[in-house]
Each structure stands twice: as C-alpha cells, then as structure tokens.
C-alpha cells in the first residue's frame, strides 16, 4: 500500500503526519518512509540514526569533443533551455540549465557530443528499526531537477507492506512526481483560509491523477466548519482532526513523535492507515 502525504500549503504538518503514521504502522508491520521534499528534507530529524548509507544521484549531461565539433550551433538551436551556446571558438555549457533530455546529442551532425554523469543530489537510506526504513532524497543546493532525485528516492522503497511518501508543499512537478503511482493520498490541512485554499488546489491534483484521497485537519482550533463543508461537498473523507495543543507542539518541537510518546496517538495513526487502505479498496 503506497500512500502520499501532500497539502498544497507549506507548514500544515505533512511531515508530522507522515512520520507519526510511519512510526505507528512500523510497530507491527514493515514500513518505508520516503522524504520526497528533496529541497528541504527533514524527516530524519525525527529518527536519529548514526549510520546512514548515502549514494549519489546523477543525471546525464552533454560533453562536447572540441576536436570533432564544427561549431555549427545545431545543439544550441535545439536546446530549449539555453544550456548550450555555440561561441566563435568553442561550445559553452551551462549545467544548471540542462534538463538532461539528450536532444543535443541527437541534433549534433558531427557526432561530437557524448553524455557524462553529473551529480545533482543524494539518496540516503537509514534503517531506523527492523521494520522501518527511512529514505531521504536530497537535491544539492542550487540545482533545479528535483524530480530526478524524487524518482530515485521512491525507487528505493517497495518491498515493504506500507510505503509512505512525504511530498513537498505546492502542486507543481515535485508533488506530481511524488503522487505518481500511489494508491492513496492524505491531504493535510489546517484551520486557516490559506490551508483551505491550497487544500482545494492539492485535491484537484489528486482528482486529475485519479488518486483517492482523505483529509487530516491539523492544528485544529475547533472552528473547521469551512474545511468540513469543503470535504462534504466534494465527498472527501476526513480521516482525523489533530487539535492545536501546546503539548503536541512541545513534543514535535523537541524532535519527538506524539505516537512514540503516547500509545493513544499510535493507535489513532494506525487507524488512519487502516482507513486509507479500506478507502482504496472501496475505490478499486
């Protein structure tokens, strides 16, 4: 069962929900938790582990052989991202603009371009417990192709009974990539107009991708009528409401998990997991 946790708005508690859900389910079953927020991964903060296994993520980029290059400029004319410029005496390459499509190599009539690897990030695997694997995708600072790192990180999980993907905020390419191929999406929102606004956007993405979803209202001040109305109108199940409480914030702020501290929360998060499964089975 593959579950993505998304929200649209940042700071609603995606990582909090993902970490607690993964921890709770791992007490009885095997779980992989994948941090797909590759620009600012943070799930490892909840799971200290001193022997992480780090492997590089690389993309293919062009390497121009100056002896073969005729400076015809076909590669630069092909590139829609301005990654290549045919100057008067050499071809310049701007690595951060390259989307690794390989088109320049095909376009080159002189066969002067071959592809080489360039590292853009890492995937880190941490064995938190015999039942819990944490995979963290990290995009190097200044790089733009987060999707490649997300794809690589997602590929490391799959053998486990539960795989939980923590998405980045927003609704653009990284979120779409995280949602690719999942069975269910948990949408985390909060009791604010911004939370609701972005929940609607994120929900729209799940609709377009045909992924069943459910809502977790986090940091609830008890005045969530508009969120519940939105969920009712769109027939989205509300999986849980987590109150806005100082105690929860303190546990979270100390780097701990409410499900690790309090068995009642562990049971509640296990129930969220079960609800996701039965909703997925109903939809199938």
């Amino acid at each position: 069962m593959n579950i993505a946790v998304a929200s649209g708005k940042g700071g609603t508690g995606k990582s909090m929900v993902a970490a607690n859900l993964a921890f709770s389910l791992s007490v009885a079953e095997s779980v992989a938790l994948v941090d797909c927020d590759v620009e600012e991964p943070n799930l490892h903060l909840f799971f200290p582990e001193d022997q992480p296994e780090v492997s590089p993520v690389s993309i293919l980029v062009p390497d121009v052989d100056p002896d073969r290059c005729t400076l015809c400029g076909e590669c630069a004319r092909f590139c829609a991202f301005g990654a290549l410029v045919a100057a008067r005496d050499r071809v310049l390459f701007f690595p951060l603009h390259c989307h690794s499509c390989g088109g320049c190599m095909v376009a080159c009539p002189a066969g002067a371009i071959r592809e080489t690897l360039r590292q853009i990030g890492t995937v880190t695997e941490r064995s938190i417990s015999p039942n819990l694997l944490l995979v963290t995708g990290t995009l190097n600072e200044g790089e733009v192709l987060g999707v490649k790192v997300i794809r690589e990180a997602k590929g490391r999980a799959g053998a486990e009974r539960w795989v939980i993907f923590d998405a980045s905020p927003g609704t653009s390419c990284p979120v779409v990539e995280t949602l690719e191929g999942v069975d269910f999406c948990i949408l985390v929102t909060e009791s604010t107009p911004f939370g609701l606004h972005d929940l609607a956007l994120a929900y729209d993405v799940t609709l377009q991708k045909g992924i069943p979803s459910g809502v977790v209202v986090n940091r609830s001040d008890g005045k969530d009528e508009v969120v519940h109305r939105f969920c009712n109108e769109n027939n989205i199940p509300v999986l849980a409401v987590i109150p806005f409480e100082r105690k929860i914030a303190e546990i979270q702020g100390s780097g701990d998990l409410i499900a690790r501290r309090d068995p009642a929360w562990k049971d509640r998060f296990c129930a969220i997991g079960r609800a996701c499964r039965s909703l997925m089975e109903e939809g199938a």
Partner: protein
Amino acid sequence: MRICIPSKGPEPGDIVDERFGRAPYYLIHDTETGKNESYKNPAAEGMGGVGPRAAQFLLDHDVNVLVTARVGGNALGALKAGGITILLYDAAGSTVMDAINAYTTGGLREQ
C-alpha cells in the same frame, strides 16, 4: 561594426528595454552601412536560459557590440566567450536612436 540594442519595439524610435534576455526585440545597427535590422526575440517568453539563448542569437547575427543597461551572469559568460563587447547604457525611457548616438559619441563604460 554591428551594434545590438535590446528594445521594446522594432523601430529606432522605440524605447530601449533594460532587460537583455527578455527584451521583446533586438535592433541591430550597422555602423558601416548605417542600416538598421530589427528582430523579434524568439526566447523573450522562454521558461529559462533566456540569457544564453539571447547571447546565441547575437552570435548568430554577427553582432560585435551590445549596448544595454545590464547583463546577467550566464549571458555575460557567453557574450564574453563570443567576443562581443558589452557597453552599459542605462537611460530609462530613451530610444534606440538615443542609444546608437550614445555609442557613436563614445564614453560608454564597458562591462
């Protein structure tokens, strides 16, 4: 010498555009023939990499000198590698003709 001025419109009387890569037009003035050519910038609305693409456009059109308000880092590298001289001309609201005259008069600072 072929001088390029990024502009908001295709005519010498149009206003200069302070953005190099995203200027809608490039006006190229040939100092030997005194003739002007104008081109729509094909990359003006591009998603990214417009600086290098604009530099490529200038190289493809045999430009020797670029007269503009400012140039970004990537475009700068490409223009320098292509041997194009960059002269800074930052006079908001002035026309392409004014920029050509400023070039002819001399005294523009090189980047």
